[in-house]
């Protein structure tokens, strides 16, 4: 679906002065930024965008499903994973055994094939993709949170809270949950990347929501329209770069978290 309204969108200037200014900026980034690489990527992206306004419109439009899926799925993954992890770790016993068996099953189900099958039969909508991801991806968070709860449970302050007569609900909500929150967020931010990649893959394979243009859909469009053989790099490079940058942003956020979480790393 080629949008007709793209001419209204502003185009970056392509004059010689513009190029020089951009090169100067790039050089500055390279010199001062530790992650200059990301800078180059962004720059390359805008150069490519400049080459095709039509694709620019789709790119902007395609960001919405990617980010929606990413954040909504990550939220549910973190929520389910954390709850399961806390409950399994706190109560132990048969409840723990059952929940962890469930996690094993979720682990044994091949993730992307399952999403494809489920989405294909539930109907190709964004929310079905989110649903299937939440159904399968909670397991990693749950395991890590559970392990964390098991060590927290032995800590003095949890023991003391029990001696003070805290109810299980209070123990889990007031004492355990805030202390596993950082690690849940860490896994949540990783899940953002996962969800975006999954949505892109599903769309690329043709099981995406046909009502929405997403980056994955754009790539599929390029692929079946023979963009590869035609050498139309400006058609399929930008969406991929967008996905890559957003996923990388997720990684960097989680790495930043990790450094806050485990200050030991900071010394390196």
């Amino acid at each position, binding site marked *: 679906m080629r949008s007709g309204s793209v001419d209204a969108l502003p185009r970056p200037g392509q004059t010689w002065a513009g190029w020089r200014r951009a090169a100067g900026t790039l050089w500055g980034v390279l010199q001062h930024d530790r992650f200059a690489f990301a800078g180059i990527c962004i720059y390359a992206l805008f150069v490519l965008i400049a080459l095709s306004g039509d694709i620019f419109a789709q790119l902007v439009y395609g960001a919405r499903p990617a980010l929606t899926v990413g954040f909504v799925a990550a939220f549910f993954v973190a929520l389910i994973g954390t709850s399961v992890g806390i409950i399994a770790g706190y109560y132990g016993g048969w409840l723990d055994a059952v929940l962890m068996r469930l996690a094993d099953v979720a682990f044994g189900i091949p993730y992307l094939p399952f999403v494809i099958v489920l989405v294909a039969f539930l109907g190709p909508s964004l929310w079905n993709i989110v649903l299937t991801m939440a159904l399968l991806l909670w397991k990693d968070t749950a395991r890590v949170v559970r392990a964390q709860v098991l060590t927290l449970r032995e800590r*003095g302050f949890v023991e003391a809270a029990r*001696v003070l007569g805290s109810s299980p609900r209070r123990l889990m909500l007031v004492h355990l949950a805030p202390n596993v929150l950082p690690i849940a967020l860490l896994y949540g931010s990783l899940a953002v990347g996962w969800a975006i990649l999954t949505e892109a893959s599903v769309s690329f394979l043709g099981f995406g929501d046909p009502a929405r243009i997403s980056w994955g859909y754009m790539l599929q469009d390029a692929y079946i329209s023979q963009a590869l053989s035609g050498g139309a790099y400006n058609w399929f490079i930008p969406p991929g770069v967008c996905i890559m940058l957003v996923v990388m942003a997720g990684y960097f956020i989680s790495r930043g978290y990790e450094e806050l979480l485990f200050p030991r790393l900071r010394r390196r």
Partner: protein
Amino acid sequence: MARPGPMTRAPAEAAAANGPLVAAEAVQKYFPLRRGLFARRAPGEYLRGVDGVSFAIPRGSSLGIAGESGCGKTTLARLLLRLITPTAGRILFEGVDLSTLDGPALLAFRRRAQLMVQNPYEAINPRFTMEQALAEPLVIHGIGTREDRLDRVIAALAQVNLRPADAFLDKYPHQLSGGQLQRVGLARALMVDPIFLAADEPVSMLDVSVRAGVLNLMKAIARARHLTTMYISHDLSLVRYVCETTMIMYLGTVAELGPTEAVLASPKHPYTQLLLAAAPVPDPGRPLPEITAPEQVPTPIGPGIGCPFQDRCPQVMPVCRTVPPPLVFVGPKHEAACHLYGPH
């Protein structure tokens, strides 16, 4: 510190008011060793944490429990506070069996019995300020109004010599030293006005120079409030400083029990003798003594026949191999579980 009114006691408890505050009757706690989900366990496949322990703590007295790591002293403390329940035997608190407590009765027990944990750096929830940590017991038990809780917290801080109290209210645990945190731990335990306080190695992770401060505070508060205390330590010199009565544990059993001075001055059980001989003393004139006990790693796993100390005992007799020794009196209020003093 502002105290709530005297607690109302049920008639049954009033009857027990003259008896010991805490009494353990043949308490056992076995932990199953981890096996496969459906595998059957042989009789020896348990870890005998506490293995048939009986004693009583009279009201207002202090009991010290000493022994090597793994002897079951921490398990015993957790049993007395009903963090875990015994495999067999009974624990009576004011004459009431702890395992029968439930709901409101259990909550009432939680106001009477409190704990000081070992590691000061883990004693307070890292996400709580000192004010939150100290107010939590009040919130749980609905003590005081929202307004006067702050006053109570400030009073509690002052009581454990954290002055000026205002300076500590908004601090997080990582901003305090180990000694200060352990004082907060003590203050928190006292917020609900308990009558029984168990302390599990409360100073073992503190620096030598600040240990005395915490110990002195505990002693002073226990005396002022007529607290019944139980103090767990692997360090006999600390037990001697704090406790009137001493109990030596070995592999989940009571080896010796008696007035602290009697136990330390004339130890009767060979294990107590071994501990005392091996303990270092700050006396350069006393070289390291010779020890004749065989080297043997004690293990709490296995069927456990006879005296638990038999493999390391220099005075072992044939009877020790088959019959577990009962506690017998070896002096006034002084008991030892050893066949040397028995009828054999």
